[in-house]
């Protein structure tokens, strides 16, 4: 009897723990997404509109983190800059807002032969709030589904 009660208590405790984790995860996901959105619509949008004009529009926001940026930087088939990888690794699970903006970004350089169809800019905005240029290019080459992934358990 006592052993069964103990098992029940253990099961109950595990269930409660799971629920707590789920609640925390859900709550944190929402908070992380909101923080990322705030950075992209605030700091990020101010940055791109002051530099590239008021017509620039926010296309997508992803709440990622330092490790997520590393995943993107080391994606198979992509050249790897080890210095950048190390820098983002140091940010670890710290929230990084990944902001995609649509507009005319043709002021970025490129070789004469390249199409330089720079219509989408991806900015990375870490905790310090300083926007960092990730990449710029055609919309079909700078896509949220190919950038740093969503991290659903980010703290706010």
């Amino acid at each position, binding site marked *: 009897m006592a052993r069964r009660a103990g098992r029940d208590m253990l099961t109950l405790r595990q269930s409660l723990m799971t629920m707590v984790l789920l609640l925390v995860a859900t709550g944190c996901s929402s908070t992380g997404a909101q923080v990322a959105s705030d950075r992209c619509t605030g700091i990020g949008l101010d940055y791109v509109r002051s530099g590239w004009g008021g017509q620039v529009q926010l296309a997508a926001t992803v709440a990622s983190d330092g490790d997520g940026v590393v995943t993107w930087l080391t994606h198979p088939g992509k050249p790897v800059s080890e210095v950048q990888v190390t820098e983002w690794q140091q940010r670890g699970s710290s929230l990084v807002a990944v902001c995609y903006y649509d507009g005319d970004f043709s002021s970025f350089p490129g*070789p004469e032969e390249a*199409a*330089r169809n720079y219509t989408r800019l991806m900015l990375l905005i870490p905790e310090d709030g300083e926007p960092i240029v990730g990449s710029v290019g055609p919309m079909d080459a700078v896509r949220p589904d190919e950038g740093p992934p969503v991290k659903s358990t980010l703290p706010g």
Partner: protein
Amino acid sequence: MPLAWLFGRPGPEGQGSRNRGPNGPGCPGDPERYVAGDIVDPTGRLPLGLMRHGRTDALRRESLDLGEDRVAVGGQRGADHARQPLVTGVTVTRVDKEVSNSAGSSCTTQFAHNANPVFQTQWVLFGGTSNWVEIGTADQCNDYDFMFWGWGQNGAWHLMGTAVNTPGGTASHVFEIFREDIGIAHYWRFKLDGVVKGTLDWNINGTYVEAGLESGDAGAVATQQNYTTLGWFRQSDQKWYLWGGNDGSGVGSAMCGHWAGGAEWHAAQGATC
């Protein structure tokens, strides 16, 4: 913002290009004669002329917002006759000359359109036109200068790093991109005067090198920029080769560029070269 990137490549030789004058393609003082070919020009601006491989093409790149997009670059194809990709380095020796940019805003926002950037750049291109590595210096309004290095893949440009304040001064500096193979790694080193500024691991061979002046500021004045001791590295025999006098792009009404003897390219904007 609506964008209008327009491209035209007339087929028949001799069409669609600004004629070369005594000062090289596109230099001030030359007669302004253009054959637009099939180029569409909704803004009435002059087409951008391009001369390449001894035949003339026309390339038009226009942003309705930015205005006439201008470059003056020289290039060298480094493939052998079988078109095997062999290029694993590019070197340019030049003075990092100051550019007088138009007044703008957000002058310290790197690459910003409103900061009127002008670039002195060099590239190794890989095969087609969508992949490359690049190192250069940028001049923006209010004398904000920086150095940058990065790469392009599938038409998208990736910034690796920047350094505020460029070498400047009147001394020459060596800007170089060079691939060093260590084991299975292929490290492209981005160097200024022998100091590595960035490294990129990319197993790819180049087919073409290019260097020159690139401007998004129609009102900028860049006095003659001399790109000297132009070299490309050939992987197959592990040697540097000088290049010059082959491909050239002289463009727009305000820019000029021409080969000056051996391995030397001159370019300018709003000034003679």
